[in-house]
């Protein structure tokens, strides 16, 4: 090869290299999407615009749940490094944590992404933030983002409203829209109405610079959306009554549920002991939750919906009503108080229905139920029971017992009203007769109900035969009450029969020997019935009532655990609550003082 021709080799090398470069550019610019996506990930960032969560108000528009400002401290490791680091000791001091704690957070942030901010300190309260805001510039990489913290300024109705807190791994796995640090309703109404309350998140697309700071809108902002605030929810609760009731139940264990009978609206719902909602929303949630969880009196347990008790004597009113409806007795029917089969109390011997309810006569209702179940129609006591119990159970369920009461409370336990299949399973098919199961005739045995079931029963009695499914939602987003709230259930029992039972209930409160005398309210005619739930660690004091007798405004159940007879504690509490609701003020100061002074555990003999 002549030397002159070597220019072709050299020129060839030049051209070859250019071809290689162009080939590489074709691959990078025209075909590969991997690197384009990587570029988009680097330069585009979506900012989520969090909507304001809907408030919760009581029936009078008073605020129950509100939002307030809280401040999260975020940290970007790379920004800190490029600025030459920061004084961790000073930073830990102004945040009020220890240096190792802070350094642990730094390592966590570094492990997540060194060029993206991570939260290193959550929910700095506003006043703390105000104190340190001027200092933060000294700590490169640290920034503050405002967020809203849920707050319940009154601390009332914590069990009902439930928890609103950070999502966990499980939430993020089931819903990809949740990211670490997001919040959601986790229990109670916050969970049940999360969709409505949370509103709709807005999204803003940004082009960011290498420091991840927003520099310009991406796609000219065409894809951006504004947040839609969550819907405010108005509850049927009367916060004044709720506050009074919670105060009354302070230092006691038990529950109160008050319902407006004509509408099914729940006016107050108290589970004692209670706790302040905000204990479980702030920074200290973890330790607060642990101490509440391990507290011997179980403050986290929502007794209004989840504690099940035997109905006891109160159940006798239902027995009387369905017996009247089935015609096995008349109001004037008298039955001998035969204490050989089942014990009784008091000195009565031959009561009619009204007296039997007032005296809480056990043999009377044993006989009444026997007439319904063991009617001799099929030749054997076993077949009779097997044939008739089903219809009886249905009649009981028509009062709401053993049902979900229309299903407006997700946490509600239905309780138990045993029927044929239950006993078949327990004893074997036709291996049981009335004599096997008679304890349910006086509200004992397998029967189980919750405080809200019993309050609803009071509403059924007040309404003379029907109830509107109990609910706490008055209005969602100002649109009024959702139609499904006002479901009506009928007992199919002639209202005439109720007058007998209501007469008895009035006597329980008014007559000199009535068990519920302490439930009297000056100026109002209260109808009530005491119950004493047998319990090995001390009987529970129970009372259900409604008032006024002829135009009932409030129906309620009161449970005081381990407090003794229903008339001793539950009845006077019912009296105070009825007075507070009907007249706005409580004049029975002596009664009020006695209740407020009583603390759990109750003395053996309260009188």
């Amino acid at each position, binding site marked *: 090869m002549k030397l002159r021709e070597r*220019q072709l080799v050299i020129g060839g090398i030049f051209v070859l*290299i250019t071809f290689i470069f162009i080939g590489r550019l074709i691959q990078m610019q025209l075909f590969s999407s991997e690197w384009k996506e990587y570029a*988009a990930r680097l330069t585009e960032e979506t900012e989520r615009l969090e909507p304001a969560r809907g408030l919760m108000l009581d029936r009078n528009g008073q605020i129950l749940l509100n939002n307030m400002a809280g401040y999260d401290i975020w940290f970007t490791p790379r920004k800190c490094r490029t600025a030459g680091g920061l004084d961790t000791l000073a930073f830990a001091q102004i945040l009020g944590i220890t240096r190792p704690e802070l350094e642990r957070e730094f390592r966590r942030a570094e492990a997540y992404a060194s060029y993206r901010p991570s939260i290193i300190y959550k929910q700095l309260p506003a006043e703390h933030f105000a104190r340190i805001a001027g200092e933060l510039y000294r700590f490169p990489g640290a920034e503050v983002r405002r967020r809203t913290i849920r707050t319940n300024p009154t601390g009332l109705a914590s069990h009902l409203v439930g928890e609103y807190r950070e999502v966990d791994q499980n939430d993020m796995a089931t819903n990809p829209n949740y990211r670490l640090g997001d919040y959601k309703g986790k229990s109670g109404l916050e969970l049940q109405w999360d969709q409505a309350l949370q509103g709709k998140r807005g999204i803003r697309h940004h082009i960011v610079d290498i420091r991840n700071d927003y520099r310009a809108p991406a796609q000219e902002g065409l894809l951006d959306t504004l947040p839609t605030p969550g819907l405010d929810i108005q509850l049927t609760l009367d916060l004044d009554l709720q506050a009074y009731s919670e105060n009354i139940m302070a230092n006691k264990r038990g529950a109160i549920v008050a319902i407006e009978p004509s509408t099914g609206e729940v006016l107050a719902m108290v589970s004692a002991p209670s706790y302040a909602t905000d204990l479980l929303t702030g920074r200290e949630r973890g330790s607060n939750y642990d101490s509440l969880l391990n507290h011997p009196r179980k403050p986290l347990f929502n007794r209004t919906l989840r504690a099940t008790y035997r109905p006891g004597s109160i159940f006798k009113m239902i027995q009387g009503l369905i017996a009247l409806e089935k015609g096995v007795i008349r109001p004037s029917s008298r039955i001998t108080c035969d204490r050989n089969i089942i014990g009784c109390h008091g000195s009565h011997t031959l009561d009619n229905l009204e007296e039997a309810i007032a005296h809480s006569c056990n043999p009377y209702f044993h006989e009444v139920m026997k007439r319904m179940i063991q009617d001799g129609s099929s030749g054997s006591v076993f077949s009779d029971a097997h044939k008739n119990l089903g219809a009886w159970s249905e009649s009981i369920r028509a009062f709401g017992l053993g049902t979900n009461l229309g299903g407006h409370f997700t946490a509600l336990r239905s309780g138990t009203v045993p029927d044929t299949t239950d006993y078949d399973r327990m004893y074997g098919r036709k291996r049981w007769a009335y004599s096997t199961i008679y304890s349910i005739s006086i509200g004992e045995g397998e029967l189980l109900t919750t405080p809200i079931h019993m309050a609803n029963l009071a509403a059924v009695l007040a309404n003379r035969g029907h109830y509107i499914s109990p609910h706490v939602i008055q209005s969602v987003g100002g649109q009024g009450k959702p139609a499904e709230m006002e479901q009506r259930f009928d007992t199919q029992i002639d209202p005439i029969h109720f007058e007998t039972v209501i007469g008895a209930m009035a006597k329980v409160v008014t007559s000199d020997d009535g068990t519920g005398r302490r439930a009297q309210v000056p100026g109002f005619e209260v109808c009530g019935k005491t119950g004493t739930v047998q319990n090995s660690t001390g009987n529970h004091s129970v009372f259900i009532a409604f008032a006024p007798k002829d135009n009932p405004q409030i129906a309620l159940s009161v449970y005081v655990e381990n407090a003794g007879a229903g008339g001793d504690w539950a009845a006077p509490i019912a009296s105070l609550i009825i007075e507070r609701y009907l007249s706005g003020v409580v004049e029975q100061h002596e009664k009020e003082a006695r209740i407020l002074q009583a603390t759990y555990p109750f003395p053996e003999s309260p009188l």
Partner: protein
Amino acid sequence: MRRTVPIIQRIDWLTVAMVIILMALGLFNVASATAGADSVDWFDWGSKQGKQFMWVALAILLGALVLIIEGEFFIRTAAIYYVLNLILLVAVLAVGRTIGGAKSWFNFGSIGIQPSEFAKTGTALMLAWLLSRSNERMSNRNNLIKAILIVAIPAGLILLQPDAGTVLVFGGMILVFYREGLSGNVLIAVFCALLITVATILTGASSFTYPFIGTSSAVGILWVILAILGTFIWAMTPQWVLPRKRKRVRRSVIFSFIAGLAMSAALHTGLEEVLKPHQKDRIHVLFGIDVGNPDADYNIRHARAAISSGAWTGKGYLQGPMTAYGFVPEQETDFIFCTIGEEWGFIGTVFTLLLFTCLLLRILHLAERQRSDFTRIFAYAAASVLFMHYLINIGMVLGLAPVIGIPLPFISAGGSSMLGFTLLIFILLRLDAERFTVLR
């Protein structure tokens, strides 16, 4: 003699045009890379684009000045210019300022001068002067050694800074030697050396469990393979080669394989023992070896992303977010091609590459039309220098070569390289313009 034709008509205006287009391209892209997404203020002398504007103006002035100086001046002063450069290279080691780990800058206020950028021109002049003095050129061993020394002395001084990229550029002078008579086998040997280098790095980074010895670097396997291959070829040579050449061929086979093994061993030792971890990481990243450090290939990932995101037509001038918001480090200097890629897309990048290739081929054309050996050799030296910058810079940005900081001629921001390349090209143009009038 056609003295009557003015020199201005003899100048190769095509080359001038290509250089000016490259300068303009550089100016616009440097402005975009430094100004962000805001509008560009060209006359803000404190800003980088303002400085670059000034450098382009100065370069054009310098070019014009060079064009009116007799070519003979450059030939006669070649040695002086070369020695002056060597002095500056020594001086910069003593009093220079360290930027980016290399002590390669003289500082005058806000302006820095990098003597190594001018040393390329000096070396090209000196090489042309030496080789044009004798008709034997590279076939004379004495000449070869002198030529190698002329290149190696400044390269060695620059290696002390250390500035590996510029040293590689000096290595490109092998193309000049080749054109002037160096055996083609040397080019092949260089190619083989590159192959062995790649194989050594790849095997060196993985491990292998040997019998008896235990787990160690897999580079041993490469050495075993080389040894077996060498022995095999040595044994088979008598079958393949004419008897009278056998002895010589067998000797060179043995020599080649021992040299290859020695080089591989030296390279492996150098990689493991001499290089700093981050330098080793850079090399490993290039070969797709996981270095377990997400920051190690940070530059190259961002560069790649920026270029890829340009797609066909780019994001538009001043519209590239990676350019505007500082995602690509050193994007106005060594990584300027990313800005072209992101904002002008495939059309812009290919245009730039083709423009460079045309310029290189044009210089080869100029070189071969000379009667003067000096001019031809100088032209080849200029082409080699430009080509090495083109090869290393674009190769690095496209992720085909290691990250070695070296500017893209006429495009990257910076005064020294701009003036240095201008000197290189315009001296050539002046010499070329005199090709009919001066007999050398």
